[in-house]
């Protein structure tokens, strides 16, 4: 266990509302080693963002509550530490980049101040040293004229530049773990590539582990060592990036891969997964994917499969169930 930087065990984060309980994250286990990049993939609403917010314990302004599980980070269970200790970890050991660069920076503060705050707070630098550190950081994320931009306001920068600022902010205190929640989704394709390149470079320099949340398999292939596929609040498959792309196991993963256009492959129509993500307050009894699964069997409708280890990772599907396979 000690080699893992982050160990999420049976995390359950539920949302409580007047209509009932929504099990947004329902028993998720994910581990990330030092310096490793793990992709978390899934459709909107599968619980990937909620998982990341749970790690940061940033569910305050949502109706969500962590009801069960542990989140071990660096040997500490983050769910047990006080709010004060958690604040010392946020932005310091674990930093986060969000999807929307346009709205993730405070419009009334200068960019420099916004990064400097975190630097002064966590690294305890004095004002002058902190400012120089901020300029160096802006420089390292490829912002031109960093010593001028530091005194500009967010609205004076483009989306790509703002995302670079967000990355500079996240990396400013040299975090051990960087959580990137769809960091490129809101950006132009050319800018996406630049941002991914930048994250890779920083990761290699600083040996930061990255938890990359995305629905873009291209980004996963580009960035990740290992991939976790989530569906309806649960992990359905986990494998190394090579195994997952070469030999996907779960029918859902197969469906996702079939829906990605490939080079040198002449297809008339891209594959798609039929149906929609089930409504979280009306989940099927058996396997949550059964209603959309082309390989659904009787048992899939009756009982939910467990997440089982198999030769190249983990998979939650009756097709690979050890006992069922033996019977056949």
């Amino acid at each position, binding site marked *: 266990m000690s080699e893992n930087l982050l160990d999420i065990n049976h995390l359950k984060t539920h949302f409580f509302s007047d209509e009932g309980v929504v099990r947004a994250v329902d028993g998720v286990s994910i581990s990330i080693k030092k310096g490793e990049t793990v992709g978390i993939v899934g459709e909107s609403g599968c619980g990937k963002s909620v998982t990341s917010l749970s790690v940061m314990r940033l569910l305050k302004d949502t109706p969500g509550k962590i009801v069960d599980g542990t989140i071990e980070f660096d040997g500490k269970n983050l769910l047990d530490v006080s709010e004060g200790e958690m604040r010392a970890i946020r932005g310091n050991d674990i930093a986060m980049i969000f999807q929307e660069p346009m709205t993730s920076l405070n419009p009334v503060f200068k960019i420099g101040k916004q990064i400097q705050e*975190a630097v002064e707070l966590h690294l305890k630098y004095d004002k002058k040293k902190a400012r120089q550190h901020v300029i160096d950081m802006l420089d390292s994320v490829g912002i031109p004229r960093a010593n001028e931009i530091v005194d500009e306001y967010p609205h004076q920068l483009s989306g790509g530049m703002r995302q670079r600022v967000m990355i500079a902010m996240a990396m400013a205190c040299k975090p051990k773990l960087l959580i990137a929640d769809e960091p490129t989704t809101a950006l132009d394709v050319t800018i996406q590539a630049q941002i991914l390149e930048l994250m890779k470079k920083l990761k290699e320099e600083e040996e930061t582990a990255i938890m990359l949340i995305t629905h873009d398999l291209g980004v996963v292939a580009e960035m990740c060592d290992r991939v976790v596929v989530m569906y309806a609040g649960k992990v359905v498959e986990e494998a190394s990036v090579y195994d997952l792309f070469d030999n996907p196991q779960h029918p859902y993963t197969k469906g996702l891969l079939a829906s990605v256009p490939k080079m040198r492959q002449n297809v008339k129509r891209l594959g798609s997964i039929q149906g929609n993500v089930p409504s979280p307050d009306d989940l099927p009894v058996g396997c949550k994917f059964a209603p959309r699964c082309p390989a659904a069997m009787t048992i899939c409708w009756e009982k939910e499969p467990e997440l089982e280890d198999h030769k190249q990772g983990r998979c939650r599907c009756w097709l690979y169930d050890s006992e069922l396979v033996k019977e056949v």
Partner: protein
Amino acid sequence: MLKYFVKRVVGIIPILIIVSVLIFLFVHMIPGDPARLVAGPDASYQDIELVREQLGLNESLPSQYFSFVGNIFQGDLGTSLKTKRPVFDELATRFMPTFWLSVWSMAWAVLIGLLIGVISATNRNNWKDYLGMFGAVSGISLPSFWLGLMLIQLFSVKLGWFPTGGLDSWKSYVLPSLTLGAGVAAVIARFTRSSLMDILKEDYVRTGRAKGLRERKIVWDHSLKNALIPVVTMTGLQFGFLLGGSIVIETVFSWPGLGRLLIDSVSFRDYPVIQACMLLFALEFILINLVVDLLYGVMNPQIKYE
């Protein structure tokens, strides 16, 4: 910024001209005969005509208007028909009590309003929020004369801490400014609450938390600075209304302010005083608007004044 400022100040002139014409016309449409009032109830027809001649009321409306404006430029706002003192002196003695009362009221209102607004917004839908908003609704809906009388009853009559009315020392300010500030505080509290609740949902608030900032800093620094932008406009307008003087409060507390001056002048058909009061109110609003606009630029860096 300076260019913008000069432009705005120059822009005030046409507004004042239009306002002065409107005021002049409105005042002359008030029914009643000032000459008869000045001459007294026993005056003969000839006496009234003589007074009318002296006051220039026989001249055509345009020439009355131009002499009115011309005198203003010479610093002469005319003479009160009632007290026979220069209108300027009348206004000056009445303006300062109203001004300081407004400042006191506003200080209370901003302090209490912001505090209640922030506490309510950060404790959404729990007892603190309900208590704060109950206070705010009470502040808006309690009639000010009633609140004033209750305060006098408690703090002046029963406890004897503050005078019942008039203006003698700083103590005289406490009760009327509390009464006047209650409504404004309530409006500020409600505005701050809704504005801050919207801001607290913003992505950059989450960014602040993800940085490891204290909740106190996130609310009072990062969020409030954004949330106050709409609150400032509203506060400016409220201050404008306060500067006009409150007839009810000034009556309840026998306050020597503009509100009572205006109401007395209206019942006496004291044209010069009415005109001067209205001009003053218009000027106050224009200046407050200018200050609010300039404050906007300071608070919101996305606004650039060209």
